[in-house]
């Protein structure tokens, strides 16, 4: 079994910094699988807002989300982010207007992003269940110290 630090060292996970300012300190921890990082680098920058009037580009939305998460901001802004059914699986969907992140909380304040996609694709192709099951599958395969995840609502994970 491995710790998060070990998994980062072996490149199975990547820690995300959140673009904090020099006077900010990280108070939550955010990790992602390498294929999520590839998507952030290769796909996200070219995406346009789904709504023509959308004010933030998808890249700006994700930058804002990562920052707010890592900086410990009040996440009630992202009120539509939620734990997916069944709740006992502990799979969470974090949302911006155009982007969906799927993953789980290893411990309170520590999120591991296992998948990422656009809101448009997820809705159009009804990918929710597929992503939820994929998160569980990836988590089961990850050599992470148990317990691998926490369950519950906002107060339990954020």
């Amino acid at each position, binding site marked *: 079994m491995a710790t998060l630090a070990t998994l980062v060292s072996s490149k199975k996970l990547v820690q995300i910094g959140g*673009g904090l300012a020099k006077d900010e300190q990280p108070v939550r921890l955010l990790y992602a699988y390498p294929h999520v990082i590839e998507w952030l680098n290769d796909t996200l920058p070219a995406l346009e807002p789904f709504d023509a009037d959308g004010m933030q580009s998808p890249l700006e939305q994700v930058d804002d989300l990562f920052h707010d998460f890592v900086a410990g901001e009040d996440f009630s802004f992202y009120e539509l982010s939620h734990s997916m059914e069944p709740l006992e699986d502990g799979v969470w969907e974090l949302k911006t207007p155009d982007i969906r992140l799927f993953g789980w909380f290893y411990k309170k304040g520590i999120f591991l992003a296992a998948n990422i996609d656009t809101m448009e694709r997820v809705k159009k192709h009804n990918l929710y269940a597929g992503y939820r099951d994929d998160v569980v599958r990836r988590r089961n395969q990850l050599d992470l110290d148990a317990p691998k995840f926490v369950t519950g609502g906002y107060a339990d994970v954020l």
Partner: protein
Amino acid sequence: MSYELKIDEKSRAAGRLIGSVRKGLILAAIEAKKETGISQQDVASQLGINKSVVNRLLRGNANLTLRTIAELAWALGYEIVFSIRKKQNKKGENIFREDVRPRQIQFDPIKGAQISKRAPQATFELERVG
């Protein structure tokens, strides 16, 4: 060494300001609903627009102009306090500035991060009227 999203500083500054405005309005809407029971439908009626427009504005799917921001705040019973300040850009600064970002941080390696709630850093605030 952690990964940082590849975004230029101009886009980051614009995106985060837009985000903080939207989040400020969402907080005001949540607070107003708790205190006075005002709904998105009530806000829409006061502004003479469809409820779906209010929903889209708050969810970040519609363009927030200065006018719509002011009108939404008014309908919620809030007023906007705007301030602009010279950017703090001290090279190598890596200190926790209690005066700017007050909060309590505790990190327990077993339980994880324990964070106290606080308002977002924003260049504007919504103050309850009356």
